[in-house]
């Protein structure tokens, strides 16, 4: 199986500080790949390199088997890579439809084509089996944390995206809303998207992921199938970069 997204040997430094060392990372269509690592391990930097926010110093990004250049978030969007950040980047004073089409509004002549935007928003939400939102003309300020997360994810899916990267989508949520978001994450992958889930919560990671990629001090310690590892092994990979035969040897990728 060819990975949909493949990162080969990425290096990234901020001035004298090297944050990513020859990082390899893959994500497959139809799967959830969990990206785990301690604070400062380089998870967010890696995602921002893929999303075109940071230029990479060295290495390659392959998309659907061919090498691509991602110089800006627009490049990433055109490839079909969408990132949902922790702050969600939603506008409180706009409704759900307006948020989903923000900056990419549909027009009919000089006017906005409200009907078609509404229909598409509705169809996207129902394709994700989202039933928790009462009206799609509701202002985002009136939504709960879980509903906001849902809208942010639906916004990412709306643009025929192929890879959706979610940065800690359950971090600020209660149990019931976390369950809904995790089920949504799983459904995204089941509809054929490649989903990358950044999370610190091991239950969330084990509940929905097919693969786990563990970063340790800017290096990819290991990328494994979730079905082949135990909780203890993943914790070791995160905290020490190795676990038995898995992971880094003498602090470097074998």
């Amino acid at each position, binding site marked *: 199986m060819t990975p949909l997204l493949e990162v080969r040997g990425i290096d990234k430094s901020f001035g004298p500080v090297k944050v990513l060392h020859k990082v390899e990372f893959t994500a497959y269509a139809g799967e959830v790949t969990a990206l785990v690592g301690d604070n400062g391990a380089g998870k967010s930097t890696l995602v921002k390199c893929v999303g075109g926010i940071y230029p990479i110093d060295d290495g390659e990004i392959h998309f659907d088997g061919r090498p691509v250049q991602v110089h800006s978030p627009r490049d990433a969007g055109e490839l079909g890579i969408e990132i949902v950040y922790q702050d969600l980047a939603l506008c409180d004073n706009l409704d759900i439809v307006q948020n989903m089409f923000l900056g990419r509004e549909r027009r009919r002549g000089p006017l906005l084509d409200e009907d078609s935007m509404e229909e598409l928003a509705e169809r996207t939400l129902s394709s994700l*089996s989202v039933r928790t939102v009462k009206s799609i003309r509701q202002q985002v300020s009136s939504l709960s944390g879980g509903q906001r997360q849902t809208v942010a994810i639906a916004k990412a899916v709306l643009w025929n995206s192929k890879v959706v990267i979610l940065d800690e989508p359950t971090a600020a949520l*209660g*149990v*019931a809303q*976390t*369950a809904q978001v*995790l*089920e949504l994450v*799983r459904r995204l992958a089941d509809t054929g998207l490649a989903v990358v889930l950044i999370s610190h919560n*091991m*239950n*969330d*990671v*084990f*509940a*929905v992921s097919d693969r786990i990629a563990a970063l340790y001090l800017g290096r990819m310690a290991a990328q494994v*199938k*979730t*079905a*082949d*590892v*135990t*909780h*203890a092994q993943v914790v070791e990979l995160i905290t020490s970069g190795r676990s038995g035969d898995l992971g880094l040897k003498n602090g470097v990728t074998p």
Partner: protein
Amino acid sequence: MISDSQPLKEPQTMRAGPSQEDIRRHNLGALLRHVHLGGPISRAELTSRMGLNRSTIMALTSDLTAAGLVREELPRETGRAGRPSLVVRPESARVYVFAFDVGPDRLAVARVGLGGVILDRREVPRDRGRFKLDELAATLSGFARQMRRKTRADTVCVGAAAAVSGGVRKADGVVTFGPNLMDEEVPFGEELGRRLGLGLPVSVGNDANLAALAEHSRGVGVAVKDLIYLHGDVGIGGGIIAGGHLLGGHDGYGGEVGHMVVNPGGRACGCGSSGCLEAEVGERALLESAGRFGAQQGRDAVRAVVEAADRGDIVAQEGLKRVGEWLGLGVANLVNIFNPEMLIFGGMLREIYLGSAAQVRTQLTLHAMAPQRDRLRLRTSALGDAATLVGAAELAFAHVLSDPLEVLARANA
């Protein structure tokens, strides 16, 4: 309970094969099943899915339309050139069944329209005392009568079925064991049918078995032929679907995964054995290991443990971890034996799995064989708390889907 939905094609030479009438009945049922499970669908789409020619599809839909089971409408907008194909819709508001759910601590009744639409629903708590047939049947039939009084004159009830937490004998639908029910024979369907007074038999099935079928026909397991559904309520039930069919066993008691022994000599189980999956993972086990037994019970109590664990309560976390480990061990055994494509956590096990997935999957990695676990998909129920009720409704619709015109004629008579 799941019958074949492939249409029969007319053989070239008719020997001892099915008669014209058999074929027509089968095809009517198959078409109705497509509309019932898949929702509104165009005639053109039906033609290609059923592999029958256009005029046959037209004849079948007009028979079903005349009977009032479906209606045909022009689609809103196709965006394509040419004459649009008519869309066939189920008459959900007109044709309905009654679905009953007898859980260990709740009773539910729903009026469910063709196409699986829940039109009306009532629910009351049930105390955990003895299984009192008279009282249960009176309550359930009372709700059904109230709902029926509110319906329009042109509606028609075509079936009724109940999901019961307990063992249901295949031969006669008699409930033979359940919570606080041992060594008794309860003719539940018969009694409920008599009290309903609709002249319809009430089919009865095990709740977890029916929920498994529900997830298979309209939930997360659509198109998955080999799946295992685990249902957590007070105890643990299950339904095993192998090759598209529910494994009922010789007497119909199959799938009682809650009584698989995972911890010999472990906690005492209500069934008389010890160390059953249900004894180690059920409600009581979770509440006791979280130090909360006796304070509160039922689904809210289980949810409270998961929430406390999430907020950092270490006793609740330990309890949930322990339960997750036993659950994972049970799942590993099932995966090794049945090699399912999908395993679904339903009822309270949805919350328990999401809250202890690290433990569940660790046990799976340690104890399930690599080829079986490699492509296994672990999922949570898509139908949630309605799974058992939806399963009962599907059981009630089974008759009308196997012989639509005959059943409708009888219901109208």
